[in-house]
């Protein structure tokens, strides 16, 4: 049964050997050339299943993987019962929101300590399960990277998600995320990453810093 049609994939809730599972199917996109399309879909499918596994080892809850089909770009995984963080955040009290954001920050910290970059940190990709824990999904845009830049961008995306969907609380939420993050990774690393976020935000996305040519 189709339960969600994401931008990239269709999410089906199925019965698989007696248990409820999620089947995530990355659909072909007609707008891009088949060569590009196939490359992207299979690459992301592999990456997602690998990173779901790595994240678990880093101490971040993720769905268990049951099967991966690279030909069809299909992943069968554990169904996480719960609710998207996106759906609860705006209705929370200030304390609840800060607590939740703090936990999210710690989890992102755990990923980054292991050089795992989520790649699409949004509040729809975090599920609050029945025991009150946060489970991360959708690692398809993720990567393993030691670069400061990747970590900065990862957190920048989190901030962007707050700003576009939870704009009223964006500032306090992101602040709490950074606090949790700092607790997890330590002041030294946190400082560097936070510094990089500001740099990313200042960078040349504006006409004023247009590039003339490439360095030889």
């Amino acid at each position, binding site marked *: 049964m189709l339960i969600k049609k994401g931008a*990239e994939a269709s999410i089906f809730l199925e019965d698989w050997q007696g248990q409820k599972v999620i089947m995530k199917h990355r659909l072909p996109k*007609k*707008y891009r050339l088949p060569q590009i399309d196939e490359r992207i879909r299979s690459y992301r499918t592999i990456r997602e299943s690998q990173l779901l596994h790595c994240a678990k080892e880093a101490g971040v809850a993720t769905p268990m993987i049951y099967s991966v089909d690279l030909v069809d770009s299909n992943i069968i995984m554990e169904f996480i019962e719960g609710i998207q963080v996106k759906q609860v955040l705006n209705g929370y009290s200030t304390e609840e929101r800060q607590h939740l954001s703090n936990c999210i920050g710690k989890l992102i910290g755990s990923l980054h300590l292991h050089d795992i970059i989520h*790649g699409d940190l949004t509040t729809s990709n975090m599920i609050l399960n029945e025991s009150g824990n946060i489970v991360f999904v959708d690692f398809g845009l993720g990567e393993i990277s030691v670069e400061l830049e990747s970590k900065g961008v990862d957190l920048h*995306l989190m901030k962007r998600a707050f700003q576009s969907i939870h*704009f009223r609380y964006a500032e306090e939420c992101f602040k709490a995320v950074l606090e949790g993050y700092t607790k997890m990774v330590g002041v030294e690393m946190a400082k560097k990453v936070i510094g990089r976020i500001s740099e990313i935000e200042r*960078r040349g996305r*504006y*006409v004023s810093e*247009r590039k003339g040519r490439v360095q030889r």
Partner: protein
Amino acid sequence: MKRCNSTKICLGIEATADDFGVGLLDFEGKVLANVNSTFIPETGGIHPREAARHHAKNAGRIISKAFQTAKIEPQDITVVAFSQGPGLGPCLRTGATAARALASYLNVPLVGVNHCVAHIEIGKLVTGFTDPITLYVSGGNTIVTAFDAGRYRIFGETLDIALGNCLDVFAREAGLRQQEGMPLGAVVENLAKKGEVLVDLPYSVKGMDLSFSGFLTAGVRLLRSKKYRLEDLCFSIQEVAFSMLTEVTERALAHTEKIELLLTGGVGANKRLQTMLKIMADEHDVRYCVVPKQYALDNGAMIAWTGILAYKYGLIIPIENSYVRLKWRLEEVDAPWVKG
């Protein structure tokens, strides 16, 4: 001929980068004039001060031409609007100076307009859209945006350089030259039509954001290796970059559930990009429009129209506070005229 006094008119001046544009619109949204002069550099990219010199030299001529086209007199103006930012400092200042001089000479109010907001608003005016997701791709901007709770929110944008800038730098590296009416991006588009072989280039989508600097470096490296036909490189650059753009736009549509998609900015003139977005929009049953060129490139009409919208909400600025804002972000602008 003096117009009847009931017709209110706004004069808008655009000068954020290489264009100096003047638009005259009445308060109903009728475009009476939209005149433009583009600075074409001899070599390399836009030199802000040279562009500003071009603007200063041509300002008087373009403004007069706008009045002639619209068949109105300066005294018919109700309000003057100018692009206050974001943009290149010297260019912005030249436009602001002209606007201030006109406003104080005519003794009419002055309105400062955000350039990015103006691109969206003129797009809505000419297409009739009311609440679109807008993909705005130009030489200086690559933004996916939609209105929510009082402001245009940015869902995705480039993390480094704008796609138009990336195409221009690549084209210049390849020795291509810009001509009147033929921007570098269009030269790349023509070459791409003769491309056949897809060359591998990095596909860099980060959430709803994009990165083109690694992509550009890779493209230039392939170019210098001299192993590939330029046509194939142009073709591959377009296919990969536009797939990235379409993907983030699709993601923003899925997340916001909006039912209109607007494409604007100079790169939006590209037929291949237009087609990709069309295919995607059709799949989602989303209405889709490309803003016509004269309103998609930098132009004075968009500033005039947004000036009118802001003026109706009393958003005028005293001349002494009309400093330019080089990094004025889209999401910092209150847009009370939009019903959301």
